[in-house]
């Protein structure tokens, strides 16, 4: 299956470990990712200032995918949310599409509708499927206990997310984790937000939200947490040491992008999956799986 790869802003700069692991595991599972030439910001950061400008920014990226005849695969859940919402809004509203396309005319672009936006975890869960992943596993991660953090924009709002997963009782990423041989462990508040949305607005509140999550996961006794969004990682991993200081306790909780965990199960080496770039070193986990 061929998909356009939409990197967005954060992934290529702050989450190269995520990007490199996606690029490794995708071809192994029959996913052909094509870089989307000329793609820019998804529009999400502008939404709070002007919803209209944000919509036009999102549409421009959809138009680039449409021109290449590709559906669009995102790695960042916020990019996904912004692009999915735009796609859904434009699909049913010809007038809005015409008004939006007017801003794209100078670049010779136009969005006729029809592009599907999918998150890489949705691609793995629904288009590849857990069964095929299990078949491809060369190094089962048996004995590993994993806490899944779904994150908000991977699930909500349900109306604009084409995968149609119940945001109050999701299972796709748990299934993906268990397909590697690891166990997905429940913990209180597992569907709660990472706090990232307001890091730039009110840091203290944002980090307090993250801390609730880290405290809950710490109580569940896991080897690592798994995320599918660069900003969730910034909060849960990148800010973990700062939160430890404020909380007066140690978490030392490795946070892996799901494709990194999957890559270990598929037999890739830790370095091939960018695990040396993870801030909280997953040395013990890597040693245990023998990567």
């Amino acid at each position, binding site marked *: 299956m061929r998909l356009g790869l939409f*990197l967005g802003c*954060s992934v290529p700069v702050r989450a190269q470990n995520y990007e*490199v692991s996606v690029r490794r595991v995708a071809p192994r599972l029959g996913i052909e990712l094509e870089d989307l030439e000329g793609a820019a910001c998804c529009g999400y950061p*502008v939404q709070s200032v*002007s919803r209209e*400008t944000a919509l036009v920014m999102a549409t421009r990226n959809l138009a680039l995918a449409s021109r290449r005849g590709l559906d669009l695969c995102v790695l960042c859940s916020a990019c996904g949310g912004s692009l999915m919402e735009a796609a859904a809004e434009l699909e049913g509203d010809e007038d809005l599409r015409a008004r939006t396309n007017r801003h794209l005319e100078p670049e010779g672009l136009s969005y006729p509708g029809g592009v599907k936006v999918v998150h890489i975890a949705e691609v793995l869960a629904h288009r590849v499927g857990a069964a095929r992943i299990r078949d491809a596993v060369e190094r089962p991660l048996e004995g590993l206990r994993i806490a899944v953090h779904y994150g908000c924009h991977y699930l909500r709002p349900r109306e604009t997310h084409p995968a149609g997963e119940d945001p109050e009782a999701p299972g796709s990423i748990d299934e993906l984790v268990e397909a590697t041989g690891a166990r997905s462990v429940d913990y209180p508040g597992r569907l709660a937000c990472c706090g990232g949305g307001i890091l730039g607005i009110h840091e203290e509140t944002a980090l307090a*939200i993250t801390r609730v999550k880290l405290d809950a996961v710490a109580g569940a006794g896991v080897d690592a947490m798994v995320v599918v969004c660069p900003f969730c990682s910034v909060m849960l991993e990148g800010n973990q040491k700062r939160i430890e200081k404020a909380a007066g306790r140690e978490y030392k909780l490795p946070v892996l992008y799901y494709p990194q965990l999957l890559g270990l199960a598929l037999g890739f080496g830790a370095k091939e999956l960018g695990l040396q770039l993870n801030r909280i070193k997953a040395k013990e986990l890597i040693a245990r799986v023998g990567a």
Partner: protein
Amino acid sequence: MGDERPIRESDLDLEFTREVRAEPGGTQLDLCIACGRCTASCPVQAQNASFNPRRIVRMAVLGMAEDVLGSDFVWLCAGCYACRERCPQGVLVTDLMVALKNIAVRRGIVHPSYRAQIAELRKFGRLYEVEAFNKKRSKLGLPPLEDRPEHATSLFESTGLDDLMDGPGEEPR
């Protein structure tokens, strides 16, 4: 809330309520029954009592423009959509927060965090200077990327964002 005082009719601006209703996030505003599920679901409220979605929805319904638009709490929504998912009346609470921020911006109030992000987008077309990371990217076998400021600036100009941001530049109190 230590600043409780009765709401006077003179505090209310029904034009503001109409403006909110006309936004995509405001269409379901009047269906709110003030049950408080939004507030109970809100991860921000759990850590910072100044952000109370139910209260903000009521303030929008009543037309308390000054109290909402000049507040710093209006910027505190994390955009997690838990409230919208759980609202029994289908009020698009998260989208309503976006609408309120958009209206604040139209009245010249822009949070400095968004000013900073838009400034970066103007410079690079993304939130970061990707070209500065190409060396590191190539070491990992990742393809190089280009900074293309025009991909943002052209749209900022044609959609009127530039004019919006050139306002008096007031910051939330």
